[in-house]
C-alpha cells in the first residue's frame, strides 16, 4: 500500500485521463478539457510535496523509485503537460480535434514520461517510454484530414518502433550478460563479476544508448524530429520537444549514473560522439530552414548535444547541470513553440515573422527573449544552463569539445537571430496577426518568467537537481 504513494502523481494523471475518456462524448469544449488537464498537472505536482525528499525509497519490488530525482522530473513533466494543454486550446477548436481524447492522450503520455523518470528497472523504463511514445504517435497524427500530419505520424511510428526494438534488444543483451534488469543489480553484477569488458555487454550498452538517443533526438537518431515537428500541430510539437527530450534525458542520466556507472569509459565515448554530432549537425542544418517548426526541430537536436555535455564527465555536478539544462530547455522551447501557436498559420513559416515587432510588439519581444535564451545570451536561463553543462565538460578535461560547443553557439546565433532580424529589421507585410486566447498568453507568461528568472538566479534550481 505504501508503494502506491510513490506513484501518486502518475495515478492522478491516469485517473483524470480515464475519467476524460469515460465522459468524452459530453466534453465538447476545449477549455474544459484543457482546464482539467491543468488541474491534474497541478495536483500531480503538488502531491509530490507529500513524500519527504530526505527519505528516498523504492517500491514495487525495487523497480520504481520515489526520490528527489524522480520528483524533479515529475515537476518538469507536470509543467510541460500544463503548458502544452494551454497551448492546445485554440488548435483543438480550429482543427475540430475531439478535446477529451486529445487531452487524455496528453495525460497518458505524461504518465509515461514520469514513469520513465522514476524507473530503476530497465523493463519499467521501457514501459514508461513506450506509453509515452505510443500516445505521441496518435497525438502527432490526430488531425486525420491533414496529409502532412498523417505522414509525420507514420514516419514517427516506423522510426520509433525501430528505435524501441533497438532499446529492447539492448535491454535483452544486458539482461543476458548480467542476469538482471534492476539498475542496482546490473551495476553490482558488472563490478563484482568483472563483466565490464564483455563484448556482448558493450553491444547492449550501445544499443540502449541508441534507443534512448532516439527519444532525445540526438544525431544519428534524429531523422524523425524535423518531419514530426513540422507535421504535428504546434502544441504537440512543443509537448514532444520539451517532454520527449526530458524523458529521454531523465533515463540517460539515471542509467549512466547507476546501472552503467562501471561502464563509464565506453559510455563517455558514446556520449562524446552523440553530443559532438548533435551539436554540429543540428546547428548547421538549422541554417538552411525556412519553416519555423523545422528550425526549432534542428535547434532541438543541437540542444540534445548541449544537454549531453553534462553527462560526459560522469560527475554529480555534471549530472545536475544536465538536469537543469533539460528543465530550462523545456521552458524556452515551449515558449518559442508557444509563439508559433499564438501566431497561428502565419507562425509556421519564417516569412510570417516579417515585421512582427511593428504589428505585435509584445509577441515579438517574447519570441526574441526565447531566441536569446536558446542562443545562450545572458542574462537568460539558456545562458546559465549552457554555462553549467560546458563548465562540467571543461572540468572533465574535454576542453576541445567545449570549444566546439561554443563555436556551434555562434553558428546557432546566426539562425536564431535571423528570426529576430525578420521580426525587427524588415517591413511588416499584410495585416497584424489576430488575438490569441488567454490560455496561450498565460502559458507564454509562465515560460517567459522561468526563462528570465533562471538567468538572473542560476542557482535557483540547485537544491532540486539532485542526481540519482
Amino acid at each position, binding site marked *: 500500500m505504501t508503494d502506491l504513494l510513490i506513484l501518486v502523481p502518475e495515478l492522478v494523471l491516469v485517473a483524470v485521463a480515464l475519467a476524460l475518456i469515460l465522459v468524452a462524448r459530453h466534453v465538447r469544449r476545449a477549455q474544459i478539457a484543457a482546464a482539467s488537464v491543468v488541474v491534474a498537472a497541478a495536483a500531480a505536482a503538488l502531491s509530490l510535496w507529500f513524500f519527504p525528499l530526505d527519505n528516498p525509497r523504492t517500491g514495487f519490488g525495487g523497480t520504481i523509485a520515489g526520490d528527489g530525482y524522480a520528483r524533479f522530473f515529475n515537476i518538469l513533466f507536470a509543467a510541460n503537460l500544463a503548458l502544452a494543454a494551454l497551448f492546445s486550446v485554440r488548435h483543438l477548436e480550429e482543427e475540430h480535434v475531439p478535446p477529451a481524447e486529445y487531452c487524455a492522450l496528453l495525460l497518458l503520455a505524461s504518465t509515461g514520461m514520469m514513469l520513465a523518470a522514476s524507473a530503476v528497472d530497465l523493463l519499467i523504463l521501457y514501459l514508461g517510454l513506450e506509453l509515452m511514445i505510443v500516445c505521441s504517435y496518435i497525438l502527432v497524427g490526430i488531425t486525420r484530414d491533414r496529409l502532412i500530419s498523417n505522414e509525420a505520424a507514420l514516419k514517427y511510428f516506423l522510426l520509433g518502433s525501430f528505435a524501441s526494438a533497438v532499446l529492447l534488444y539492448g535491454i535483452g543483451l544486458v539482461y543476458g550478460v548480467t542476469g538482471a534488469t534492476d539498475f542496482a543489480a546490473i551495476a553490482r553484477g558488472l563490478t563484482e563479476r568483472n563483466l565490464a569488458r564483455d563484448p556482448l555487454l558493450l553491444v547492449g550498452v550501445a544499443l540502449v544508448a541508441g534507443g534512448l538517443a532516439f527519444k532525445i533526438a540526438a544525431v544519428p537518431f534524429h531523422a524523425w524530429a524535423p518531419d514530426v515537428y513540422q507535421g504535428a500541430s504546434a502544441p504537440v510539437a512543443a509537448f514532444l520537444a520539451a517532454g520527449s527530450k526530458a524523458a529521454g534525458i531523465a533515463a540517460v542520466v539515471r542509467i549512466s549514473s547507476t546501472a552503467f556507472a562501471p561502464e563509464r569509459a565506453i559510455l563517455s565515448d558514446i556520449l562524446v560522439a552523440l553530443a559532438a554530432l548533435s551539436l554540429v549537425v543540428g546547428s548547421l542544418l538549422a541554417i538552411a530552414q525556412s519553416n519555423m517548426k523545422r528550425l526549432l526541430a534542428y535547434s532541438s537536436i543541437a540542444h540534445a548535444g548541449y544537454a549531453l555535455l553534462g553527462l560526459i564527465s560522469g560527475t554529480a*555536478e555534471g549530472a545536475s547541470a544536465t538536469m537543469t539544462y533539460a528543465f530550462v530547455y523545456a521552458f524556452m522551447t515551449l515558449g518559442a513553440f508557444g509563439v508559433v501557436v499564438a501566431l497561428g498559420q502565419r507562425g509556421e513559416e519564417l516569412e510570417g515573422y516579417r515585421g512582427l*515587432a*511593428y504589428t505585435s*510588439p509584445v509577441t515579438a519581444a517574447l519570441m526574441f527573449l526565447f531566441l*536569446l535564451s536558446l542562443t545562450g*545570451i*545572458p*542574462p537568460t536561463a539558456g*545562458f546559465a544552463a549552457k*554555462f553549467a553543462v*560546458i*563548465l562540467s565538460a*571543461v*572540468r572533465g578535461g574535454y*576542453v576541445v569539445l*567545449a*570549444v566546439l560547443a*561554443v*563555436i556551434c*553557439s*555562434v553558428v546557432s*546565433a*546566426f539562425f536564431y*537571430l535571423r528570426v529576430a*532580424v525578420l521580426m*525587427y*529589421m524588415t517591413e511588416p507585410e499584410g495585416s497584424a496577426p489576430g488575438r490569441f486566447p488567454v490560455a496561450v498568453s498565460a502559458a507564454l507568461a509562465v515560460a517567459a518568467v522561468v526563462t528570465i528568472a533562471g538567468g538572473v538566479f*542560476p*542557482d535557483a534550481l*540547485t537544491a532540486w537537481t539532485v542526481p540519482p
Partner: protein
Amino acid sequence: MTTYPPLTVITFLPLAGAAVVFLFNERLARWIALATTLLTLAASVPLYLRFDRTSSALQFVESVPWIPSWNVVYGMGVDGISLPFIFLSVVIGVLCVGVSWAAVRVLRREFYSTLLVAETAMIGLFAATNFFLFYVFWELMVVPMFLLVGVWGGTGRVAAAFKFLLFTLAGSLLMLVGLMVLLHASGTLDFQGLAQMRPRLSLSLQAWLFVAFSAGFAVKVPMFPVHTWLPDAHTEAPTAGSVILAGILLKMGGYGLLRIALPILPDATRLFLTPMLALSALAIVYGAYVTLAQTDVKRLIAYSSISHMGFVTLGIFTLNRSGLEGAILQMVNHGIITGALFLCVGMIYERTHTRNIEDYGGLFKVAPVYSSFFAIFCLAAAGVPGLNSFVGEFLITSGAFRTRPWLGAAAIWGVALGATYIFWLYYRVVLRDVNPGLRGLRLDINVREVATLAPLAALALVLGLYPESVLGFLRESVGQLLAAVSASAAVAVKL
C-alpha cells in the same frame, strides 16, 4: 548617504527606465529616456566626489552571494581605472538620447529601451569585480548594439549588424571557455583574488587563456586582423549607435586587457608582448593609411578609430606607467572626441542625407556654429596641444620610446598621418567653396544639438588643459597594476 549601494543604483537605473518606457506611449519615450539618463548622471556624481584618490583599493564595494555552486558573488566596486569609464558611460548615455531626439522615428519605445539597456551593460561592465558578472554585462552589450545597428541603421544595416554580432560572439564565446578553464583551475572568478593568486597559473595555461581572452578583447578594441566589422557597423549604425560603439564599446576591449589580461595573466602578457606591440603599431599605421583613402565621412572616422585604438593597445603593452596612464586617458579622450565627431556627422547627415565627403564643402559659410564645434573636435583628434588627445598621445609615445624605440617612431608616424587625414577631412567638408548641392538647406544646428555637443567640447578642453582631472584618479590603481605585472617578473626570474 552611505546607506544606498551607489554602483548598483546607477547600473540598474537605466534598466528600470527601459522597462518604464513601455508603460507609456511612444511620444513620451524620449522624455523618459532623457530623465533616466540625467538621473543616472546625477546619481553618479557622489562617486567622483567621494572617491579616495590616494588609495588603489576597490571602493564603493558591494558583495552579495549570487551563485554559490560556482563560487560567484554579485560583486560591484570601482577603482581608479574603472571610474573614468563609468563617467564616460553616463555622459554618453545622456548625449545619445539628445542626438536621437528627432532622428528616430520608428519603434521609438523599443529604441530608447534598447539604448537604456545598453547603458546598464556599459556601467555594469566597468563596475563588476568578478569575471562572471563582467561576462554577463559583456554579452548583454552585444544584443542592444545588434538591434541599434540592425533596426535603426542605414541601408546595409542587417549585414553590418550580423557581421558585428558574429565577430563579437566568436570572440566572446572563446573568452567564455577561457573563463571556465580559469574557474576550474583557480576556483574563483574574483578579479582581485585571481590577481593575487599564489602560486600563479602555469605559463602554458596562462598562454592559452591569454589567447582565449585576447580573442574576445581584440575583437572589441578592435585590433588589427579582427577589425573588419568596425567600419561596417559604424557606418550603418544610427548616430547614437556609432557614438556608443566609438565611445564605450571599443573601450570595453581595452578595459578587459587592463582588468583581466595584465593582472591575471602577467607571465603570458610578457610572453606575447612583442606580437601585441607589433599588431598595435600595425593598427596605427595601417589604420591611418586606410583612413586617408576614405570618401565616406563615417567610414573615415571609423577607420581613424582603428588607428587611435592602436595607440591605446600600444600604451597598454608598453607596461610602463607613462604608457598605461596614457592608454587609459586616451581611451577616455577617444570616447569623447570620436563620440563627438560621430555626433557632428550625424547632425549634418540629418539635414543633407549624404555621407559622401565630395557632397560637402564650405560649411563654414552656411553653418558657422556647427563648423566651430567640428573644428574643436578635429583639432582635438589631430592631437593639438591644449586639447585632450595631445596629452594621451604624448604619454603613450614617450612610453613607447622607453620600451622599444621603433614603436615610438611608428607612433609618431601615426600622429603625423592622423593630423593629415583629419585636417584634410576638415578642409574638404568645411573649407573650400560652398558646394552647390548644399545651397538652400538650413544646415546650422539648433539649441538642442549645441547642448549635446557643448559638454563634449568642454570636456575636451578641460582634459587638455588639466589632464590631472583624470590622471589623478588613475595613479594609485595603475601603480598597483604595474606592481602586479612586475611582481610576476620577479617570480619568473626565480623560476
